[in-house]
């Protein structure tokens, strides 16, 4: 039941954000997490963001995946 998935915030309108889950975009309530910004990744559980993902980790993952896709 505690399943949650990470997604990228692409637009914010008040307490609602559009979050991209690898191509599927959903409206997510971000009122439980402080200071969410466009471009950041949030962990989403049952329609609500519960926490932001660590930015350094996300960047590192993206660098790794970009490198892999070029190989």
């Amino acid at each position, binding site marked *: 039941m505690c399943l949650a998935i990470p997604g990228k915030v692409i637009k914010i309108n008040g307490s609602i954000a559009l979050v991209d889950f690898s191509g599927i975009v959903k409206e997510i309530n971000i*009122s439980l*997490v402080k200071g969410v910004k466009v471009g950041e990744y949030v962990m989403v559980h049952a329609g609500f963001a519960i926490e932001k993902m660590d930015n350094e980790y996300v960047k590192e993952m993206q660098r790794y995946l970009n490198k892999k896709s070029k190989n």
Partner: protein
Amino acid sequence: MTNLDQILKNISEKAEKIGRPIRLMELCGTHSETIARYDLKNFLPSNIFLVTGPGCPICVTDQTEADVIVGLALAGVSIAVYGDALNLPGNLGSLEEVRQKGADVNVVYDVTDALRLSQKKGGLVFWGIGFETTTPATAWGIKQGLTVFSSHKVFVPAMKALLKNKKIRIDGFINPGHVSAIIGTEIYEKFLFPQVVAGFEIDDVLLAIDMLLNQIISQKPCVKNEYTRLVKKKGNKRALKIMEDVFEVRNGFWRGLGEIKNSGLKIRKKYQLQDAEFIYKDLILKIKKNITIKPSTCRCGEVLQGMIEPKECPLFGKICFPDNPQGACMVSREGSCNIEYRADR
């Protein structure tokens, strides 16, 4: 050699060094699901055992609370519920069974859905189930005017109860990742016991096992955080604050574990007009009075504490299946019996 191979190699070397059987309990149903999905138990050394704990909220929901919500539905109250809880069997049947008989039971994806539906119907009762991952959203819903019947639970007191039970032999805990995103890691430091907060990918779980073995070898029990990409020491303060504003702790009733001090969450008096326990006080008393307990040989209670394996229950796979669950652990996809049943087939 891939990272996973390397971690497995480390685990094997450490398990051999320890020699004796090691029992590690995963405290979150989503960890149990990862372990089953990758058939992880078959890749571990023969002296490392993974035991499922009481981390599936549906599984640990008290029978009386399930009966009350079904009783409310039978009395004509509109109910909204997460899909996971729809088939939870009770003495009066499950919500799905009474829905088929005409009761107004609605499955919702999230609290926002429940709120929208409530506004459309002119009121309903949302069944609040879950640990700290789920509770802040329910608190948000209550602040927006949603009426809730709270079966929400606090996780840490259950860990304390497990550690106090001498019948349960456990060498370390894999602590729940998303509960910890809310409550943080510091709160676990009160237990001088090997613990690792872990994420839900296969490498997260393997790393957690490796980190627990380190603690067991060094005989230095502590709290380590493997899920640093999400979980902070103090947790999510904003989510904690909204929970604190709406709920207060009370003793909670857990299937299998019984009554645990300060492990339940009650809606505070200032929100009592959104509290189904207050609004339907007399009806709930009547429902509770009229419950006839169906005798059952279901052993969910022992499964939930890692005392027996699902297959040791006399009902498992004989009359208890995911399509016809007799006990709570067969209902949710995160329930130990449900996982075991699917893994076998």
